[in-house]
């Protein structure tokens, strides 16, 4: 089984070991780091579930059987959230797609979901931070 990302609905970006995903349709933000970022990179690369399991087991120096459940749980949540869909996958050179980073021990991948980001941005009190940022002395006007 592989996975498909609808590029009309989902934008995403990775920087080092952090990834951010936006479901444009719902306005939800998802963010994860470490194993979550690596999982996402492999999904984007078109890897199947089996490839993801084996690639991450190798990258994190653990055995595939012990991490498969963590990955299935996380992937199921991404599908439920509408970020990815299940699909027939083409073979991919998935292992080559992971960035060369120092990795710590395996931890279950987690994407934190921010479903009300737009509300936060609306709430951002523009009277607390001026357009020029703090601190800024306005030019002295003439009365």
């Amino acid at each position, binding site marked *: 089984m592989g996975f498909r990302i609808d590029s009309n609905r989902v934008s995403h*970006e990775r920087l080092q070991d952090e990834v951010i995903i936006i479901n*444009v349709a719902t306005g939800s933000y998802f963010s994860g780091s470490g194993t979550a970022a690596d999982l996402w990179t492999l999904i984007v690369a078109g890897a199947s579930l089996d490839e993801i399991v084996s690639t991450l087991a190798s990258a994190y120096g653990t055995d595939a059987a012990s991490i498969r459940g963590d990955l299935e749980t996380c992937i199921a949540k991404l599908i439920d959230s509408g970020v990815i869909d299940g699909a027939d996958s083409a073979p991919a050179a998935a292992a080559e797609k992971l960035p060369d980073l120092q990795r710590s021990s395996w931890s279950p991948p987690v994407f934190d979901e921010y479903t009300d*980001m737009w509300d936060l941005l*609306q709430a951002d009190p523009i009277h607390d931070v001026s357009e020029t940022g703090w*601190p800024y002395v306005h030019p002295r006007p003439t009365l």
Partner: protein
Amino acid sequence: MLVADLSAAMRGCGIEMAVVTDTIGELPRFDVISDTRVYRLSLAKSLRNSNLQDTLANIHEMSRIIAAERPDILHVHSATQASVFYLDRILRKQGSQVPLILTQHGALEESDKTQVTRRMILEARLLTAVSHAALVSATEFSGRTADSRTIYNGIAMPPEFLAKRRMPPRHKLLCVGRMQREKGFDLAIDALAAVRSRGIDAELTLVGYGEDQRRFEERAAALGISQRVAFLGALDRMEVRRLMAESSILLAPSRTREGFCLAAAEAASVGTPCIVSNVGGLPETVEHEVTGFVVPNEELGSLVRSIIQLLSEPGLWSHMSGRAYERSRARFSLDRCVDSYAAAYREVLENSKKGQKWDSA
């Protein structure tokens, strides 16, 4: 404003601050202003524009700044702003041994009650708010039971010569703040028209800038009082204090979100009575019928009646002026505010060193 004042005053207590702030302007990303290091990141803009590259770069930059500054305490001012998303990401990714203090500056509205706001309120070692109303709104929303307290904003007291004791000969009303509907300055314009229609020759000055200024100007024009309403833009603090001292009444008819009315506290410090709406922490900055009037939110009739009463009764005005002056010094001095935050920092640090859970302290 509070952070700028605190930063200078805290240095006198041996406490050094560095500031990370949002900006949508073109100012340098790094400044040293009055010996305070200021980092400016385009935090809200990158999220608003869904610019994921910049958003990720901001997370990394904020993380790098925290690592470089090695603060003993992270003090977050307001949990209803874009920066809390970034801090939330850093805390979730790395965890943090640095204790967090959150100061809530506004009373939370329904739309402010986001997941990350709740998380930040709950995860802070200490929650402070600039008014009791702001504190209650934060604790009720989050369910937080750990330590929290009100620390009123402090203001630098003006030179004594500015503090007046006599009612100004001309009836000058003043509004100070951002030109936005939330501030209710349109109500002040409507009130001025009503007051003038009763034969009282009053005028109104508005200080500040903002997105709704044109609408306010149009409102004044529609009411035929443009010549009696002055828009001065943003002024420096001494100019504002001088205007306050020359004014009969400061009006703060805000509609929403106000945690504390700095303008009302500053006006009181020069003996100018205030009329504020019954919103958020505003009733805590003005003692009703003692240092001014607290009127129901968006109730123009009450606002107009209070203005007329104050302008028509010099004895009442003088009494309120004196009480406002005294109360501002007793309750809203910068020294008191600085002492309260310095004590809070010490407590949080001591409890962190002891490894105590804050709520068991």
